[in-house]
């Protein structure tokens, strides 16, 4: 019943997309399409939430006579897909709500309205799929519809290149997934998930499938070094789509990885638990370092997505390590941490993108060098963005803290692992994660500080106005969810119970009957966290401090200008700039990780023009992996190109020698 209802939702979204295609010239088309998307995703959200809370109500597989004739298409909702459906439809509903206001500024609605509901439909279909063909078809549908959205503003500089790169990486990832499913299906070609589960592959084959799943899902999620397309393509799309791609589509990729590796692949081997957290840790640190160096607000957020995907994969990898050693409780903890972070990241990343979108729509700027002081002009957006920044920086009492804290709890259990490699590696990954968390804090100090604080750096920022009420509503709902998930994490952990149980064979102890809404993941003796108490403490101490300052300190302040607070010149250019903020980090990591190159151009003596400091940064994986690969492909293509210009006899000779070689192979091979 659940799967059936959700399939109707998918169909309704596709119909909305078709309607958008037909009606996009009408003045009310934008509002109608987004309102329909909002209603449908809200319905899907309710259905999947009910499915997650009462997993017993989920029943069998629905087969439709579509697709390959001997296979058909199969759809099924289980606890895992119910959870991810919930995540996706929360993000989808909020993006639709935000777009009710934001979409009015769209100059080419015909390029967005048909694809937005189709994109949502594709993501839902991936989660509903219960056989490899349907999964891959929906996956590709999702990729292509999001590609169309990335290309919505294709004339803007760089967008066409971003779209091309995205298409290339998406095809590559789908190819890897196709091969993975081919190996899983085995020689008999059993593409049904239920049939794959029946016969787990041999150890060598499962290792290859793991690598292919890492490549396939990782290229969509943005694991380093497959992340290169993400910071280009995510910001290129309209903002509500950026939020969906960053906050939600990367989660579909995580779902693909979990479905293949935890569900279909059979019991893990211990070294999987070394590879996956290692890649996750590297991804987290690289992602946040890149984020910290960006001056483009949306690109900063896209790089920060790479970081959070790293954190999620660390959790998933630890779950694999513990599960391989039959430490089910610890595996359940790590898996809970990863899934909770999936949920949390979808909330605050959507929120932050909405904030960036609000700034973009009222100022037309994404460059933080030209923003500033917006807290006075856009107070409500600033407040919501601040909450999102605190949540993504893992500050209590918000939700980001809970999931990262749980990840660290899982890392602290690593000394009990029997393998020495893991004993050494996992704490190192923990150190990477701690570094990433600290840098994420710095990164969002930068994002919030330079966008909303200080003095406006351009006229357009000086005259900005706060955004419309639909967008504000979307942001505030997400901010409220961040807070609720932060102070009442026990309920969310309990709701995840069936998913964890199904994937790792154990689940965390029930949290809801504990006193004062504390969460205690392992045992009372280890550690516990009480979001509510922290929240009350923060509220109380902050109010008292504010009261004290206003009562005693402010009253004593007299206005005077003896020293101008370091701003004798009133030009906003004298302020600390985003580039200056990240300069120490750039200097520390610059020469190795970013191949940073700084150059000071002094004007000749007597010339009054200003000196210029030029900084050039390179993406290391791009230089080390992609550029040589592109050169190799170009070289081969050029060599093969000569085949286009043979004589008739040349072609005949080619065919003849190919025939003779094949015949010889046949003769020898027998």
């Amino acid at each position: 019943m659940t799967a059936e209802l959700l399939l109707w939702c998918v169909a309704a979204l596709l119909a909305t997309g078709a309607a958008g295609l037909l009606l996009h010239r009408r003045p009310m088309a934008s509002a109608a399409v987004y309102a329909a998307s909002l209603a449908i995703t809200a319905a899907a959200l309710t259905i999947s939430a009910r499915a997650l809370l009462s997993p017993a109500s989920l029943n069998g597989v629905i087969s439709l006579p579509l697709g390959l004739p001997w296979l058909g298409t199969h759809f099924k909702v289980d606890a895992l897909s119910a959870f991810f459906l919930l995540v996706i439809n929360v993000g989808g509903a909020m993006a639709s709500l935000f777009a009710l206001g934001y979409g009015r500024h769209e100059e080419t609605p015909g390029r967005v309205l048909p694809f937005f509901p189709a994109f949502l439909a594709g993501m839902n279909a991936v989660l509903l799929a219960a056989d490899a063909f349907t999964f891959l078809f929906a996956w590709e549908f999702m990729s292509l519809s999001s590609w169309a959205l990335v290309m919505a503003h294709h004339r803007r500089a760089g967008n066409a290149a971003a779209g091309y790169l995205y298409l290339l990486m998406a095809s590559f990832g789908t190819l890897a997934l196709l091969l993975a499913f081919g190996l899983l299906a085995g020689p008999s070609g059993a593409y049904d998930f239920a049939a794959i589960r029946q016969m787990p592959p041999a150890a060598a084959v499962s290792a290859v499938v793991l690598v292919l799943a890492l490549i396939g899902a990782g290229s969509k999620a943005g694991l380093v070094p497959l992340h290169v397309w993400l910071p280009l393509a995510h910001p290129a799309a309209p903002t509500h789509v950026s939020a969906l791609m960053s906050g939600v589509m990367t989660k579909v990729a995580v779902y693909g990885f979990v479905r293949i590796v935890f569900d279909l692949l059979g019991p893990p081997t211990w070294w999987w638990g070394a590879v996956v957290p290692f890649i996750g840790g590297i991804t987290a640190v690289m992602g946040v370092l890149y984020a910290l160096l960006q001056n483009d607000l949306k690109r900063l957020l896209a790089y920060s997505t790479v970081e959070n995907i790293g954190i999620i994969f660390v959790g998933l990898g630890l779950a694999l390590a513990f599960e391989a050693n039959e430490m089910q409780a610890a595996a359940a903890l790590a898996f809970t941490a990863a899934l909770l972070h999936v949920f949390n990241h979808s909330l605050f990343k959507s929120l932050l993108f909405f904030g960036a979108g609000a700034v973009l729509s009222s100022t037309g700027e994404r460059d933080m060098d030209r923003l500033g002081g917006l807290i006075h002009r856009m107070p409500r957006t600033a407040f919501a963005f601040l909450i999102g920044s605190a949540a993504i920086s893992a500050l209590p009492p918000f939700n980001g803290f809970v999931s990262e804290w749980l990840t660290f709890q899982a890392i602290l259990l690593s000394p009990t692992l029997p393998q020495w490699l893991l004993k050494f590696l996992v704490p190192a990954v923990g150190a990477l994660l701690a570094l990433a968390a600290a840098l994420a804090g710095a990164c969002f100090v930068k994002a919030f500080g330079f966008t909303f604080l200080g003095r406006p750096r351009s006229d357009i920022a000086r005259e900005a106005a706060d955004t419309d009420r639909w967008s504000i509503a979307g942001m505030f709902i997400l901010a409220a969810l961040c807070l609720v998930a932060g102070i009442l994490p026990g309920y969310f952990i309990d709701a995840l119970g069936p998913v964890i149980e199904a994937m790792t064979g154990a689940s965390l102890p029930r949290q809801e009957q504990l006193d004062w809404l504390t969460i205690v993941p392992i045992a009372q003796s280890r550690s516990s966290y009480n979001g509510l108490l922290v929240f009350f403490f923060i509220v109380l101490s902050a109010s008292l401090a504010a009261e004290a300052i206003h009562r005693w300190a402010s009253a004593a302040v007299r206005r005077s200008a003896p020293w101008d607070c370091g701003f004798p010149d009133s030009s906003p250019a004298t302020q600390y700039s985003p580039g200056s903020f990240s300069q120490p980090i750039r200097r520390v990591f610059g020469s190795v990780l970013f191949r940073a190159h700084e150059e000071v151009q002094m004007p000749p003596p007597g010339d009054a023009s200003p000196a210029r400091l030029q900084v050039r940064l390179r993406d290391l994986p791009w230089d080390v992996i992609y550029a040589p690969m592109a050169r190799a492909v170009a070289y081969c293509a050029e060599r093969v190109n000569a085949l286009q210009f043979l004589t008739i006899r040349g072609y005949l000779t080619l065919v003849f020698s190919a025939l003779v070689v094949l015949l010889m192979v046949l003769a020898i091979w027998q």
Partner: protein
Amino acid sequence: MITPLAFDVAHLFAGSLVLVSFMLLYQDRMTGLVNTFALHALVVSFSVAWQAYIQQAPHLYITAAIALGIKAIVIPVVLHRMIVRLGIHRTIEPVVGVGLTMLAGIGLIALSIMVMLPITAQAGTLAREDLAFALSVILLGLLMMISRRNAVSQVIGFMSIENGLILAATGAKGMPLVVEISVAFSILVALIVIGIFLFRIRERFETVDIHLLHEHRGEQP
């Protein structure tokens, strides 16, 4: 059941066809080449007629008649007239290294026997030998097409490939007549098209050496 004599005669015809294919390879005059091709077609038609006799398949007589009428008589006559009209009947075509071409041909026959005999282990003896010979004729025809420069020689190489296909098809029992007729007609059409094409090339470039065509292609690297 095939008697030893019937087998031997069929074998003789198939073997002669391979021999005539070799003869095609070392002809260096246009007229000689066309005459040898007529011989090639004649041998094919005998071979097909013999197959019709031993398989008691009367429709194969029609195939044989078509081969005899069109390929052994009409096409050689047309080619002779074409050669005369093009004024290349005295041309000595440089065959690139007769010795080398013949050696390559021997290698191809060895290859086709090595390929064919193991895979057709279940088939009857006659069919096996026939298939091996037919593959040799096809490969020799291809070799001829790539070792000659003149367009007329290429047409002849192409048609000798077709003779090889007929040999293969009649050796295996029961190729429908329709297929044979359509193949024969397509060969005839190909001859006409190529013939017209040859005169057009000749008018435009005053030669039928296809190497010179290459310089007139639209796209160049």
